Protein backbone atom coordinates (compact mmCIF):
# COMPACT_ATOMS: atom_id res chain seq x y z
CA UNK A 1 0.00 0.00 0.00
CA UNK A 2 1.42 3.39 -0.90
CA UNK A 3 2.36 5.77 1.87
CA UNK A 4 -0.26 8.23 0.68
CA UNK A 5 -2.95 5.59 0.86
CA UNK A 6 -1.92 4.75 4.39
CA UNK A 7 -2.03 8.40 5.33
CA UNK A 8 -5.51 8.93 3.89
CA UNK A 9 -6.75 5.72 5.45
CA UNK A 10 -5.28 6.66 8.78
CA UNK A 11 -6.93 10.07 8.77
CA UNK A 12 -10.20 8.71 7.48
CA UNK A 13 -10.50 6.08 10.18
CA UNK A 14 -9.50 8.69 12.72
CA UNK A 15 -12.34 10.98 11.76
CA UNK A 16 -14.78 8.06 11.66
CA UNK A 17 -13.66 6.91 15.07
CA UNK A 18 -14.11 10.40 16.47
CA UNK A 19 -17.61 10.62 15.04
CA UNK A 20 -18.56 7.25 16.46
CA UNK A 21 -17.07 8.07 19.86
CA UNK A 22 -19.08 11.27 19.87
CA UNK A 23 -22.17 9.15 19.37
CA UNK A 24 -21.01 6.90 22.22
CA UNK A 25 -20.68 9.90 24.54
CA UNK A 26 -24.07 11.26 23.51
CA UNK A 27 -25.70 7.87 24.14
CA UNK A 28 -23.89 7.51 27.45
CA UNK A 29 -25.23 10.89 28.58
CA UNK A 30 -28.72 9.88 27.46
CA UNK A 31 -28.48 6.67 29.48
CA UNK A 32 -27.35 8.63 32.51
CA UNK A 33 -30.17 11.12 32.17
CA UNK A 34 -32.76 8.34 31.89
CA UNK A 35 -33.94 9.61 28.51
CA UNK A 36 -36.16 7.39 26.43
CA UNK A 37 -38.62 7.62 23.57
CA UNK A 38 -41.31 5.20 22.42
CA UNK A 39 -39.05 4.11 19.59
CA UNK A 40 -35.94 3.90 21.74
CA UNK A 41 -36.54 2.46 25.18
CA UNK A 42 -33.78 2.82 27.75
CA UNK A 43 -32.36 -0.66 27.35
CA UNK A 44 -31.93 -0.02 23.62
CA UNK A 45 -30.09 3.25 24.23
CA UNK A 46 -27.92 1.42 26.71
CA UNK A 47 -27.23 -1.48 24.37
CA UNK A 48 -26.43 0.76 21.40
CA UNK A 49 -24.08 2.78 23.62
CA UNK A 50 -22.13 -0.38 24.41
CA UNK A 51 -22.12 -1.78 20.88
CA UNK A 52 -21.12 1.52 19.30
CA UNK A 53 -18.23 1.87 21.72
CA UNK A 54 -16.86 -1.49 20.59
CA UNK A 55 -17.27 -0.55 16.93
CA UNK A 56 -15.58 2.75 17.56
CA UNK A 57 -12.77 0.95 19.35
CA UNK A 58 -12.36 -1.24 16.28
CA UNK A 59 -12.08 1.80 14.03
CA UNK A 60 -9.65 3.33 16.47
CA UNK A 61 -7.51 0.20 16.31
CA UNK A 62 -7.40 0.40 12.53
CA UNK A 63 -6.53 4.10 12.77
CA UNK A 64 -3.61 3.35 15.08
CA UNK A 65 -2.27 0.35 13.17
CA UNK A 66 -2.45 2.20 9.87
CA UNK A 67 -0.43 5.05 11.27
CA UNK A 68 2.08 2.69 12.81
CA UNK A 69 2.70 1.37 9.33
CA UNK A 70 2.81 4.82 7.75
CA UNK A 71 6.33 6.26 7.63
CA UNK A 72 5.06 9.85 7.62
CA UNK A 73 3.43 9.47 11.00
CA UNK A 74 6.67 8.42 12.66
CA UNK A 75 4.72 6.51 15.23
CA UNK A 76 6.50 4.06 17.49
CA UNK A 77 4.87 1.45 19.68
CA UNK A 78 5.78 3.38 22.82
CA UNK A 79 3.79 6.34 21.49
CA UNK A 80 0.64 4.23 21.70
CA UNK A 81 0.95 4.09 25.46
CA UNK A 82 3.04 7.02 26.61
CA UNK A 83 1.75 10.39 25.45
CA UNK A 84 3.74 13.40 24.29
CA UNK A 85 6.87 11.47 23.23
CA UNK A 86 6.01 11.44 19.51
CA UNK A 87 8.29 12.79 16.83
CA UNK A 88 5.47 14.31 14.72
CA UNK A 89 3.53 17.11 16.47
CA UNK A 90 4.16 15.62 19.91
CA UNK A 91 1.57 17.65 21.83
CA UNK A 92 -1.41 16.96 19.55
CA UNK A 93 -0.20 13.41 19.03
CA UNK A 94 0.08 12.95 22.79
CA UNK A 95 -3.57 13.89 23.22
CA UNK A 96 -4.42 11.08 20.85
CA UNK A 97 -2.35 8.67 22.92
CA UNK A 98 -4.08 9.86 26.06
CA UNK A 99 -7.47 9.35 24.44
CA UNK A 100 -6.47 5.87 23.28
CA UNK A 101 -5.24 4.88 26.76
CA UNK A 102 -8.47 6.13 28.30
CA UNK A 103 -10.66 4.35 25.74
CA UNK A 104 -8.92 1.07 26.54
CA UNK A 105 -9.43 1.77 30.26
CA UNK A 106 -13.12 2.59 29.72
CA UNK A 107 -13.84 -0.48 27.62
CA UNK A 108 -11.89 -2.90 29.81
CA UNK A 109 -13.41 -1.59 33.02
CA UNK A 110 -16.89 -1.87 31.53
CA UNK A 111 -16.31 -5.44 30.37
CA UNK A 112 -15.13 -6.25 33.90
CA UNK A 113 -17.88 -4.25 35.62
CA UNK A 114 -19.20 -7.18 37.60
CA UNK A 115 -15.76 -7.89 39.00
CA UNK A 116 -14.99 -4.27 39.86
CA UNK A 117 -18.22 -3.34 41.57
CA UNK A 118 -20.42 -0.36 41.03
CA UNK A 119 -18.38 2.33 42.78
CA UNK A 120 -15.03 1.53 41.20
CA UNK A 121 -16.58 1.19 37.76
CA UNK A 122 -18.34 4.54 38.10
CA UNK A 123 -15.19 6.31 39.24
CA UNK A 124 -13.27 4.94 36.25
CA UNK A 125 -16.03 5.81 33.81
CA UNK A 126 -15.60 9.50 34.64
CA UNK A 127 -12.48 9.23 32.47
CA UNK A 128 -14.84 9.58 29.52
CA UNK A 129 -15.12 13.31 30.29
CA UNK A 130 -11.38 13.62 29.70
CA UNK A 131 -11.11 11.09 26.89
CA UNK A 132 -13.52 12.61 24.41
CA UNK A 133 -12.26 16.21 24.58
CA UNK A 134 -8.71 14.90 24.23
CA UNK A 135 -9.71 12.96 21.12
CA UNK A 136 -11.49 16.00 19.71
CA UNK A 137 -8.58 18.38 20.23
CA UNK A 138 -6.18 15.73 18.91
CA UNK A 139 -8.23 15.50 15.72
CA UNK A 140 -8.18 19.25 15.17
CA UNK A 141 -4.55 19.78 16.10
CA UNK A 142 -2.90 16.67 14.74
CA UNK A 143 -4.69 15.93 11.51
CA UNK A 144 -3.52 17.63 8.35
CA UNK A 145 -7.15 18.58 7.64
CA UNK A 146 -7.44 19.76 11.19
CA UNK A 147 -8.64 23.21 10.41
CA UNK A 148 -10.31 22.70 7.06
CA UNK A 149 -13.90 23.84 6.74
CA UNK A 150 -15.55 20.45 6.64
CA UNK A 151 -13.49 19.25 9.58
CA UNK A 152 -14.44 22.25 11.66
CA UNK A 153 -18.07 21.76 10.69
CA UNK A 154 -17.89 18.15 11.78
CA UNK A 155 -16.19 19.07 15.05
CA UNK A 156 -18.80 21.77 15.61
CA UNK A 157 -21.52 19.19 15.09
CA UNK A 158 -19.89 16.82 17.56
CA UNK A 159 -19.58 19.54 20.18
CA UNK A 160 -23.20 20.59 19.66
CA UNK A 161 -24.41 17.01 20.02
CA UNK A 162 -22.48 16.40 23.23
CA UNK A 163 -23.46 19.82 24.55
CA UNK A 164 -27.12 19.05 24.01
CA UNK A 165 -26.87 15.66 25.66
CA UNK A 166 -24.93 17.18 28.55
CA UNK A 167 -27.74 19.69 29.18
CA UNK A 168 -30.21 16.81 29.43
CA UNK A 169 -27.87 15.03 31.83
CA UNK A 170 -27.49 18.08 34.09
CA UNK A 171 -31.22 18.72 34.08
CA UNK A 172 -31.83 15.11 35.16
CA UNK A 173 -29.36 15.50 38.02
CA UNK A 174 -31.16 18.56 39.32
CA UNK A 175 -34.52 16.78 39.13
CA UNK A 176 -33.34 13.74 41.06
CA UNK A 177 -32.22 16.01 43.89
CA UNK A 178 -35.68 17.48 44.20
CA UNK A 179 -37.73 14.38 43.34
CA UNK A 180 -37.42 13.11 46.89
CA UNK A 181 -40.36 14.28 48.93
CA UNK A 182 -39.15 16.77 51.44
CA UNK A 183 -39.24 15.27 54.88
CA UNK A 184 -41.78 17.04 57.08
CA UNK A 185 -39.84 18.74 59.83
CA UNK A 186 -40.63 16.24 62.55
CA UNK A 187 -42.09 17.46 65.77
CA UNK A 188 -39.99 15.09 67.83
CA UNK A 189 -42.09 13.12 70.26
CA UNK A 190 -41.74 15.07 73.44
CA UNK A 191 -40.20 12.28 75.42
CA UNK A 192 -37.17 12.09 73.14
CA UNK A 193 -35.67 14.72 75.34
CA UNK A 194 -36.48 12.83 78.49
CA UNK A 195 -34.85 9.52 77.92
CA UNK A 196 -31.25 10.29 77.09
Amino acid at each position, binding site marked *: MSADALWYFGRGTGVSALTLFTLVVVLGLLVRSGWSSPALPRFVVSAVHRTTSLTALGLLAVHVVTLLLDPYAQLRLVDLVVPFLGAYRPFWQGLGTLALDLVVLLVLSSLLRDRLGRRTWRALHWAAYLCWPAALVHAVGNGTDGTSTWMLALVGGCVAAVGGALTLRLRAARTSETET*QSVPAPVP*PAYLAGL*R
Partner: protein
Amino acid sequence: MNAPQRLLGAAAATLADHSRLLGPLPGVDGAGILRAAAESSLTGRGGAAFSTGRKLASVAAASDPVVVGNGAEGEPASSKDRRLLATAPHLVLDGLQLAARAVGSRTAYLYAPADLLRTRLEPALRERRDDVPVTTVASPGAFLSGEESAVVQAVQGGRAVPTSTPPRVFERGVHGRATLVQNVETLAHLALLTRFGAAWFRGVGTSAEPGTRLLTVSGAVAAPDVLEVAGGTLLADALALAGGPTEPLGAVLVGGYHGAWVPAEAVADIALSRDGLAPYGAAPGAGVVLALADSSCGLRAGADVAAYLAGQGARQCGPCRNGLPALAGTLRALADGRPSPLLVAEVQRVSRLVEHRGACHHPDGTVRLVRSTLRTFSAEVAHHLAGRCTARHGALVVPSETEEAIA
Protein backbone atom coordinates in the same frame (compact mmCIF):
# COMPACT_ATOMS: atom_id res chain seq x y z
CA MET B 1 -44.05 -10.01 91.07
CA ASN B 2 -40.51 -8.76 91.37
CA ALA B 3 -38.16 -10.88 89.28
CA PRO B 4 -34.62 -11.62 90.47
CA GLN B 5 -32.46 -8.69 89.37
CA ARG B 6 -29.92 -10.85 87.58
CA LEU B 7 -28.61 -8.13 85.28
CA LEU B 8 -29.32 -4.97 87.21
CA GLY B 9 -28.09 -6.69 90.37
CA ALA B 10 -24.74 -7.39 88.74
CA ALA B 11 -23.84 -3.72 88.93
CA ALA B 12 -20.15 -3.34 89.64
CA ALA B 13 -18.00 -0.24 89.36
CA THR B 14 -14.68 -2.05 89.02
CA LEU B 15 -13.37 -5.38 87.84
CA ALA B 16 -12.59 -6.27 91.44
CA ASP B 17 -16.20 -5.66 92.48
CA HIS B 18 -17.42 -7.66 89.51
CA SER B 19 -15.13 -10.61 90.29
CA ARG B 20 -16.11 -10.53 93.95
CA LEU B 21 -19.76 -10.65 92.96
CA LEU B 22 -19.66 -13.18 90.13
CA GLY B 23 -16.29 -14.88 90.19
CA PRO B 24 -13.81 -14.99 87.31
CA LEU B 25 -14.66 -15.51 83.67
CA PRO B 26 -15.77 -19.17 83.44
CA GLY B 27 -13.34 -21.57 81.76
CA VAL B 28 -16.08 -23.33 79.74
CA ASP B 29 -14.85 -24.11 76.24
CA GLY B 30 -16.49 -22.91 73.01
CA ALA B 31 -18.55 -26.04 72.51
CA GLY B 32 -19.79 -25.83 76.06
CA ILE B 33 -20.91 -22.24 75.60
CA LEU B 34 -22.74 -23.16 72.40
CA ARG B 35 -24.48 -26.00 74.23
CA ALA B 36 -25.47 -23.81 77.14
CA ALA B 37 -26.83 -21.10 74.84
CA ALA B 38 -28.89 -23.63 72.88
CA GLU B 39 -30.29 -25.31 76.00
CA SER B 40 -31.19 -22.00 77.59
CA SER B 41 -33.36 -20.92 74.62
CA LEU B 42 -31.94 -17.44 75.07
CA THR B 43 -33.17 -15.13 72.32
CA GLY B 44 -31.70 -11.84 71.17
CA ARG B 45 -32.63 -8.79 73.20
CA GLY B 46 -31.96 -6.26 70.46
CA GLY B 47 -35.39 -6.50 68.89
CA ALA B 48 -35.36 -9.40 66.46
CA ALA B 49 -35.46 -12.08 69.19
CA PHE B 50 -33.57 -14.62 67.11
CA SER B 51 -32.34 -17.76 68.87
CA THR B 52 -28.90 -16.92 70.26
CA GLY B 53 -27.82 -20.56 70.21
CA ARG B 54 -28.62 -20.87 66.51
CA LYS B 55 -26.92 -17.57 65.68
CA LEU B 56 -23.75 -18.53 67.57
CA ALA B 57 -23.71 -21.93 65.90
CA SER B 58 -23.97 -20.56 62.38
CA VAL B 59 -21.15 -18.08 62.93
CA ALA B 60 -19.07 -20.75 64.65
CA ALA B 61 -19.26 -22.81 61.46
CA ALA B 62 -17.36 -20.12 59.53
CA SER B 63 -13.61 -19.59 59.52
CA ASP B 64 -12.09 -16.46 61.07
CA PRO B 65 -15.34 -14.87 62.27
CA VAL B 66 -15.74 -11.49 63.97
CA VAL B 67 -17.90 -10.66 67.01
CA VAL B 68 -19.44 -7.28 67.70
CA GLY B 69 -21.19 -6.27 70.91
CA ASN B 70 -23.97 -3.91 69.82
CA GLY B 71 -24.81 -1.22 72.36
CA ALA B 72 -25.88 1.42 69.85
CA GLU B 73 -29.52 1.52 70.99
CA GLY B 74 -30.79 3.84 68.28
CA GLU B 75 -34.34 3.34 69.59
CA PRO B 76 -35.20 6.62 71.32
CA ALA B 77 -37.75 5.06 73.66
CA SER B 78 -35.19 2.58 74.97
CA SER B 79 -32.38 3.14 77.43
CA LYS B 80 -31.86 -0.36 78.80
CA ASP B 81 -28.59 -0.95 76.96
CA ARG B 82 -27.26 2.36 78.23
CA ARG B 83 -28.20 1.42 81.80
CA LEU B 84 -26.60 -2.00 81.46
CA LEU B 85 -23.37 -0.67 79.95
CA ALA B 86 -23.15 2.04 82.57
CA THR B 87 -23.76 -0.16 85.60
CA ALA B 88 -22.45 -3.60 84.62
CA PRO B 89 -19.87 -3.12 81.87
CA HIS B 90 -17.82 -6.12 82.94
CA LEU B 91 -20.81 -8.42 82.61
CA VAL B 92 -21.22 -7.32 79.01
CA LEU B 93 -17.49 -7.61 78.36
CA ASP B 94 -17.50 -11.12 79.84
CA GLY B 95 -20.32 -11.99 77.45
CA LEU B 96 -18.34 -10.61 74.53
CA GLN B 97 -15.33 -12.79 75.40
CA LEU B 98 -17.52 -15.86 75.81
CA ALA B 99 -19.28 -15.22 72.50
CA ALA B 100 -15.90 -14.87 70.81
CA ARG B 101 -14.80 -18.15 72.35
CA ALA B 102 -18.02 -19.85 71.30
CA VAL B 103 -17.63 -18.91 67.63
CA GLY B 104 -13.84 -19.23 67.54
CA SER B 105 -13.18 -15.55 66.93
CA ARG B 106 -9.95 -13.68 67.63
CA THR B 107 -11.42 -10.28 66.69
CA ALA B 108 -13.95 -8.46 68.85
CA TYR B 109 -15.53 -5.03 68.69
CA LEU B 110 -17.69 -3.11 71.09
CA TYR B 111 -20.00 -0.64 69.36
CA ALA B 112 -21.59 1.86 71.71
CA PRO B 113 -22.17 5.62 72.17
CA ALA B 114 -19.00 7.63 72.57
CA ASP B 115 -19.79 8.94 76.03
CA LEU B 116 -20.32 5.42 77.40
CA LEU B 117 -17.12 4.24 75.79
CA ARG B 118 -15.18 7.08 77.30
CA THR B 119 -16.65 7.03 80.81
CA ARG B 120 -17.36 3.35 81.43
CA LEU B 121 -16.31 0.88 78.78
CA GLU B 122 -12.79 1.88 77.91
CA PRO B 123 -11.83 2.22 81.59
CA ALA B 124 -13.34 -1.23 82.17
CA LEU B 125 -11.41 -2.69 79.23
CA ARG B 126 -8.20 -1.24 80.61
CA GLU B 127 -8.75 -3.17 83.85
CA ARG B 128 -9.09 -6.49 82.07
CA ARG B 129 -6.69 -8.98 80.54
CA ASP B 130 -8.82 -10.65 77.91
CA ASP B 131 -7.88 -13.41 75.47
CA VAL B 132 -9.53 -11.66 72.56
CA PRO B 133 -8.60 -7.99 72.14
CA VAL B 134 -11.59 -5.66 71.94
CA THR B 135 -11.67 -2.60 69.69
CA THR B 136 -14.18 0.07 70.62
CA VAL B 137 -16.18 1.84 67.91
CA ALA B 138 -18.34 4.85 68.69
CA SER B 139 -21.93 4.60 67.48
CA PRO B 140 -23.80 7.65 66.21
CA GLY B 141 -27.17 8.28 67.80
CA ALA B 142 -29.22 7.66 64.68
CA PHE B 143 -32.16 5.25 64.75
CA LEU B 144 -30.68 2.89 62.18
CA SER B 145 -27.17 2.91 63.61
CA GLY B 146 -27.89 -0.31 65.52
CA GLU B 147 -29.13 -2.28 62.52
CA GLU B 148 -26.75 -5.18 62.08
CA SER B 149 -25.48 -4.34 58.59
CA ALA B 150 -25.12 -0.69 59.61
CA VAL B 151 -23.06 -1.89 62.57
CA VAL B 152 -20.76 -3.75 60.19
CA GLN B 153 -20.35 -0.63 58.04
CA ALA B 154 -19.52 1.49 61.07
CA VAL B 155 -16.98 -1.04 62.36
CA GLN B 156 -15.32 -0.95 58.95
CA GLY B 157 -15.02 2.80 59.23
CA GLY B 158 -17.92 3.76 56.98
CA ARG B 159 -21.28 5.43 57.51
CA ALA B 160 -23.56 3.53 59.88
CA VAL B 161 -26.25 2.81 57.32
CA PRO B 162 -27.63 -0.57 56.30
CA THR B 163 -26.50 -2.45 53.21
CA SER B 164 -28.49 -4.61 50.86
CA THR B 165 -28.83 -8.28 51.81
CA PRO B 166 -28.20 -11.11 51.04
CA PRO B 167 -25.61 -11.93 52.19
CA ARG B 168 -26.58 -11.49 55.83
CA VAL B 169 -23.82 -10.38 58.16
CA PHE B 170 -23.56 -13.76 59.85
CA GLU B 171 -22.39 -15.04 56.43
CA ARG B 172 -20.39 -12.04 55.22
CA GLY B 173 -19.85 -9.05 57.47
CA VAL B 174 -16.82 -7.12 58.63
CA HIS B 175 -14.21 -7.26 55.85
CA GLY B 176 -16.08 -10.14 54.26
CA ARG B 177 -15.83 -12.35 57.35
CA ALA B 178 -18.75 -14.04 59.10
CA THR B 179 -19.84 -11.60 61.82
CA LEU B 180 -21.84 -12.06 64.99
CA VAL B 181 -23.64 -8.83 65.89
CA GLN B 182 -25.14 -9.33 69.34
CA ASN B 183 -27.04 -6.93 71.55
CA VAL B 184 -25.23 -6.12 74.79
CA GLU B 185 -28.08 -7.38 76.98
CA THR B 186 -27.96 -10.73 75.21
CA LEU B 187 -24.21 -10.88 75.88
CA ALA B 188 -24.85 -10.12 79.55
CA HIS B 189 -27.31 -13.03 79.76
CA LEU B 190 -24.73 -15.26 78.07
CA ALA B 191 -22.16 -14.26 80.68
CA LEU B 192 -24.52 -15.35 83.46
CA LEU B 193 -25.86 -18.56 81.97
CA THR B 194 -22.35 -19.76 81.13
CA ARG B 195 -21.53 -19.44 84.82
CA PHE B 196 -24.72 -20.77 86.34
CA GLY B 197 -26.12 -23.02 83.64
CA ALA B 198 -28.99 -23.16 81.20
CA ALA B 199 -31.30 -24.69 83.79
CA TRP B 200 -30.63 -21.78 86.12
CA PHE B 201 -31.41 -19.37 83.28
CA ARG B 202 -34.71 -21.09 82.62
CA GLY B 203 -35.59 -21.05 86.34
CA VAL B 204 -37.34 -17.71 85.88
CA GLY B 205 -39.86 -16.73 83.27
CA THR B 206 -42.05 -19.00 81.17
CA SER B 207 -41.09 -21.88 78.88
CA ALA B 208 -41.82 -19.71 75.85
CA GLU B 209 -40.01 -16.70 77.32
CA PRO B 210 -37.34 -18.01 79.70
CA GLY B 211 -35.03 -15.87 81.77
CA THR B 212 -35.32 -12.22 82.63
CA ARG B 213 -35.35 -9.23 80.32
CA LEU B 214 -34.84 -5.49 80.59
CA LEU B 215 -37.68 -3.12 79.84
CA THR B 216 -37.71 0.64 79.42
CA VAL B 217 -41.05 1.76 80.81
CA SER B 218 -41.91 5.39 80.17
CA GLY B 219 -44.70 7.73 79.22
CA ALA B 220 -47.73 8.25 81.46
CA VAL B 221 -46.33 6.31 84.43
CA ALA B 222 -45.36 7.64 87.84
CA ALA B 223 -41.78 6.33 87.92
CA PRO B 224 -40.45 5.74 84.42
CA ASP B 225 -37.37 3.55 84.60
CA VAL B 226 -35.37 0.68 83.20
CA LEU B 227 -36.69 -2.46 84.88
CA GLU B 228 -35.76 -6.11 84.91
CA VAL B 229 -38.69 -8.49 84.71
CA ALA B 230 -39.24 -12.20 84.16
CA GLY B 231 -40.01 -13.32 80.64
CA GLY B 232 -43.73 -13.38 79.96
CA THR B 233 -44.51 -10.75 82.60
CA LEU B 234 -47.93 -9.17 82.30
CA LEU B 235 -47.92 -5.74 80.69
CA ALA B 236 -49.99 -4.43 83.60
CA ASP B 237 -47.35 -5.65 86.05
CA ALA B 238 -44.61 -3.91 84.11
CA LEU B 239 -46.57 -0.64 84.31
CA ALA B 240 -47.15 -1.17 88.03
CA LEU B 241 -43.43 -1.65 88.61
CA ALA B 242 -42.92 1.75 87.06
CA GLY B 243 -45.24 3.36 89.56
CA GLY B 244 -48.40 2.64 87.66
CA PRO B 245 -50.23 4.88 85.19
CA THR B 246 -50.53 8.53 86.23
CA GLU B 247 -53.93 8.74 84.55
CA PRO B 248 -56.22 6.43 82.61
CA LEU B 249 -54.40 5.07 79.61
CA GLY B 250 -55.46 5.05 75.99
CA ALA B 251 -52.88 2.57 74.74
CA VAL B 252 -49.35 1.30 75.32
CA LEU B 253 -46.67 1.24 72.61
CA VAL B 254 -44.81 -2.03 72.94
CA GLY B 255 -41.51 -3.08 71.38
CA GLY B 256 -40.20 0.22 70.11
CA TYR B 257 -40.93 2.72 67.39
CA HIS B 258 -41.17 -0.21 65.00
CA GLY B 259 -43.61 -1.90 67.37
CA ALA B 260 -47.33 -1.67 67.81
CA TRP B 261 -49.95 -0.30 70.19
CA VAL B 262 -51.86 -2.38 72.71
CA PRO B 263 -55.22 -0.77 73.55
CA ALA B 264 -55.79 0.06 77.21
CA GLU B 265 -58.64 -2.46 77.55
CA ALA B 266 -56.24 -5.31 76.73
CA VAL B 267 -53.41 -4.23 79.03
CA ALA B 268 -54.67 -6.15 82.06
CA ASP B 269 -54.65 -9.50 80.24
CA ILE B 270 -51.62 -9.25 77.94
CA ALA B 271 -48.28 -10.83 78.69
CA LEU B 272 -45.08 -9.37 77.27
CA SER B 273 -44.49 -12.42 75.14
CA ARG B 274 -44.56 -13.20 71.45
CA ASP B 275 -47.82 -15.15 71.79
CA GLY B 276 -49.43 -12.61 74.06
CA LEU B 277 -48.67 -9.63 71.86
CA ALA B 278 -49.10 -11.27 68.45
CA PRO B 279 -52.85 -10.50 68.17
CA TYR B 280 -51.93 -6.81 68.26
CA GLY B 281 -49.16 -7.11 65.71
CA ALA B 282 -46.66 -6.43 68.49
CA ALA B 283 -43.72 -8.29 70.01
CA PRO B 284 -41.53 -7.70 73.09
CA GLY B 285 -38.88 -6.36 70.70
CA ALA B 286 -36.33 -4.15 72.42
CA GLY B 287 -38.38 -4.06 75.63
CA VAL B 288 -39.96 -0.67 75.12
CA VAL B 289 -43.19 -0.05 77.05
CA LEU B 290 -44.49 3.45 76.39
CA ALA B 291 -47.76 4.39 78.06
CA LEU B 292 -50.05 6.84 76.30
CA ALA B 293 -52.65 8.63 78.39
CA ASP B 294 -56.21 8.53 77.18
CA SER B 295 -56.19 12.32 77.30
CA SER B 296 -53.50 12.32 74.62
CA CYS B 297 -54.40 11.90 70.99
CA GLY B 298 -53.21 8.53 69.75
CA LEU B 299 -53.26 9.69 66.15
CA ARG B 300 -51.04 12.63 67.01
CA ALA B 301 -48.65 10.34 68.87
CA GLY B 302 -48.53 7.94 65.93
CA ALA B 303 -47.99 10.83 63.54
CA ASP B 304 -45.13 12.11 65.70
CA VAL B 305 -43.44 8.72 65.71
CA ALA B 306 -43.99 8.29 61.96
CA ALA B 307 -42.48 11.70 61.29
CA TYR B 308 -39.46 10.82 63.39
CA LEU B 309 -39.05 7.51 61.55
CA ALA B 310 -39.39 9.20 58.17
CA GLY B 311 -36.57 11.55 59.10
CA GLN B 312 -34.36 8.75 60.34
CA GLY B 313 -34.15 6.78 57.11
CA ALA B 314 -30.72 6.33 55.60
CA ARG B 315 -32.09 7.87 52.38
CA GLN B 316 -30.46 5.18 50.28
CA CYS B 317 -33.53 3.42 48.95
CA GLY B 318 -36.02 5.21 46.73
CA PRO B 319 -39.28 3.64 47.93
CA CYS B 320 -38.41 4.30 51.59
CA ARG B 321 -36.92 7.75 51.05
CA ASN B 322 -40.03 8.85 49.18
CA GLY B 323 -42.68 6.69 50.79
CA LEU B 324 -42.01 7.25 54.47
CA PRO B 325 -42.39 11.02 54.32
CA ALA B 326 -45.56 10.49 52.27
CA LEU B 327 -46.87 8.11 54.91
CA ALA B 328 -45.91 10.42 57.76
CA GLY B 329 -47.46 13.38 56.01
CA THR B 330 -50.73 11.55 55.44
CA LEU B 331 -50.89 10.45 59.05
CA ARG B 332 -50.12 14.02 60.10
CA ALA B 333 -53.01 15.28 57.99
CA LEU B 334 -55.31 12.77 59.69
CA ALA B 335 -54.01 13.76 63.11
CA ASP B 336 -53.98 17.50 62.76
CA GLY B 337 -57.43 17.77 61.35
CA ARG B 338 -57.37 18.56 57.67
CA PRO B 339 -58.61 15.10 57.00
CA SER B 340 -60.56 13.54 54.22
CA PRO B 341 -61.81 9.93 54.19
CA LEU B 342 -59.51 9.29 51.24
CA LEU B 343 -56.53 9.66 53.56
CA VAL B 344 -57.05 6.31 55.22
CA ALA B 345 -57.07 4.52 51.87
CA GLU B 346 -54.02 6.52 50.85
CA VAL B 347 -52.15 5.38 53.97
CA GLN B 348 -52.93 1.78 53.08
CA ARG B 349 -51.87 2.27 49.47
CA VAL B 350 -48.53 3.90 50.28
CA SER B 351 -47.91 1.32 53.01
CA ARG B 352 -48.14 -1.42 50.41
CA LEU B 353 -45.71 0.52 48.19
CA VAL B 354 -42.96 0.73 50.77
CA GLU B 355 -43.27 -2.58 52.55
CA HIS B 356 -40.31 -4.91 51.85
CA ARG B 357 -38.92 -2.47 49.29
CA GLY B 358 -35.76 -1.35 50.98
CA ALA B 359 -32.40 -2.69 52.04
CA CYS B 360 -33.44 -3.01 55.68
CA HIS B 361 -36.63 -3.34 57.70
CA HIS B 362 -37.05 0.36 58.41
CA PRO B 363 -39.96 0.78 55.97
CA ASP B 364 -41.56 -2.45 57.23
CA GLY B 365 -41.32 -1.38 60.87
CA THR B 366 -42.70 2.05 60.06
CA VAL B 367 -45.64 0.50 58.21
CA ARG B 368 -46.30 -1.74 61.22
CA LEU B 369 -46.43 1.30 63.50
CA VAL B 370 -48.66 3.24 61.12
CA ARG B 371 -51.09 0.37 60.57
CA SER B 372 -51.26 -0.27 64.29
CA THR B 373 -51.97 3.42 64.92
CA LEU B 374 -54.91 3.41 62.54
CA ARG B 375 -56.22 0.12 63.90
CA THR B 376 -55.87 0.93 67.58
CA PHE B 377 -57.18 4.47 67.29
CA SER B 378 -59.82 3.77 64.65
CA ALA B 379 -62.45 5.46 66.83
CA GLU B 380 -60.25 8.52 66.97
CA VAL B 381 -59.90 8.44 63.18
CA ALA B 382 -63.69 8.61 62.90
CA HIS B 383 -63.76 11.59 65.28
CA HIS B 384 -61.06 13.40 63.32
CA LEU B 385 -62.84 12.83 60.04
CA ALA B 386 -65.89 14.41 61.65
CA GLY B 387 -63.76 17.37 62.68
CA ARG B 388 -63.32 16.52 66.40
CA CYS B 389 -60.53 15.22 68.59
CA THR B 390 -61.43 13.56 71.87
CA ALA B 391 -58.03 14.12 73.41
CA ARG B 392 -57.29 17.11 75.58
CA HIS B 393 -53.74 17.52 74.46
CA GLY B 394 -51.39 16.29 71.81
CA ALA B 395 -48.00 14.76 72.19
CA LEU B 396 -46.91 11.93 74.39
CA VAL B 397 -46.28 12.91 77.97
CA VAL B 398 -42.67 13.66 78.82
CA PRO B 399 -41.39 11.36 81.53
CA SER B 400 -38.97 12.50 84.15
CA GLU B 401 -35.38 11.42 83.62
CA THR B 402 -35.23 7.65 83.46
CA GLU B 403 -31.49 7.59 83.54
CA GLU B 404 -29.27 8.70 86.39
CA ALA B 405 -26.46 10.94 85.26
CA ILE B 406 -23.25 9.16 84.42
CA ALA B 407 -20.86 10.17 87.13
